[in-house]
């Protein structure tokens, strides 16, 4: 009679929580990494070239919406630019529905 079976550790079922908890821990770790990444990469030096160009050329707007002049130079738009065809013309450029009128035009 061998004593191995008597000495064998009792069989314990695998704990259901181990893998999900490890995954959750990894998620939390990655979450922290995103905060560090934002602090590390999100500095102003990457924008230096753009900032210099804005100062040199005296630019006033971002080139985000180039389809219509009042969305290309949003801050320079006047009250009429969205109604360029006639006074009741509905805005027909898609970005017109994404951009509000300049802040100064919304004041009474």
């Amino acid at each position, binding site marked *: 009679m061998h004593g191995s079976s008597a000495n064998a550790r009792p069989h314990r079922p695998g704990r259901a929580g181990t893998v999900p908890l490890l995954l*959750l821990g990894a998620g939390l770790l990655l979450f922290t990494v995103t905060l560090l990444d934002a602090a590390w990469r999100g500095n102003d030096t990457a924008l230096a*070239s753009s*900032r210099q160009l804005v100062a040199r*050329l005296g*630019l006033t707007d*971002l080139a985000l919406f180039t389809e219509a002049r009042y969305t290309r130079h*949003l801050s320079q738009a006047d009250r009429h630019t969205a109604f360029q065809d006639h006074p009741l013309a509905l805005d027909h450029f898609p970005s017109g529905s994404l951009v509000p009128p300049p*802040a100064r035009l919304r004041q009474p």
Partner: protein
Amino acid sequence: MSHFLRRQRYLIDFTLASLGRRKGKNLGLLGVYTLIVFLLASVMLFSQSLRREAGLLLENAPEVVVQRMVAGRHDLIPAAYLERIGKVRGVAAKYGRLWGYFYDPAVQANYTLLVPRDQEIKSGEMIVGAGIARTRGLGAGDYLTFRSAQGQSFAFRVADVLASDAELVSADLLLVNEADYRAFFGIAEGMYTDLALEVRNPQEVRKVAEKLSVMLPDTRPILREEILRTYDALFQWRQGIVFVLLAGSLLAFVIFAWDKASGLSAEEKREIGILKAIGWETADVIRMKFWEGALVSLGAFLLGYLAAYVHVFFFDAALFAPVLKGWAVLYPQFRPQPFVDGLQVATLFFFTVFPYTVATVVPIWRAATTDPDAVMR
């Protein structure tokens, strides 16, 4: 302390094993939950990043821009206005700006032509933005021909291409010299698109603007702070619009999650009854269900947020590009600078994790406080 932790660990093990028994249903819930968090977090991260970038970039915009208005529309301004402005105290520098739009029918794109103030460009040459160079396949030495306002053809040689890392502000720019600009658009000498001013003391900018409005009643000054405010409002507005568009799917999810979390199935009720019958305390049952809600919602939050971070800051928010692009042919290729606003992330966390966890615990509390025999029947 270790007893408390061990107890929680066993509860978590039990909860996860219980969730595993209804794998399909729970994974489906996690998937939809993650998608909702992903969409909300993507909009939030993208808008915040652009808002911050716009603020940093446009800090260097002209302090005051003076536009002339004719019949409510922006018109050319005579150079004589510069001399009149010179009499206003506090104005340190003033110059006329020449810029305008040109629609290129060849690629159906709008360009912004601009005359740089302190850069010499040879006659017949132009410097193009990286967006135009990409769209038209241009490089230094290539030629670009446009039809002018008078119907003449103007051939410009591309002298240089602007840096591609500045595309956010220069994708559609064409820089030409003053003589070429005036000849191309037929603008007489002594007329400018608008005027730009630098004010010696930043505290006096508003005062200078007031004086200008009185002195030149047909003009309107646009201050740098207004430009910054416009962009601040733009990204808040857009974030708001997307949230409104998402509201429908968000409500659908809330109903789904509420139903899933608060409506106990007969199987779950039986499970609670058995647990109580074998000696579980009410508090343990509630703790177990708390862990169920917390683990599902925390998992969905982490997955959704991480996917959104990768989408916005590593894949340039590719899903939003078609919305931003509209009908525009020229769209800047740019990678948003990673920027995370702690308060916004905390708000997102609170509104995604907290309600679901509460919705899971409340009905369980009702079921767990009743008699096991009644629950099992």
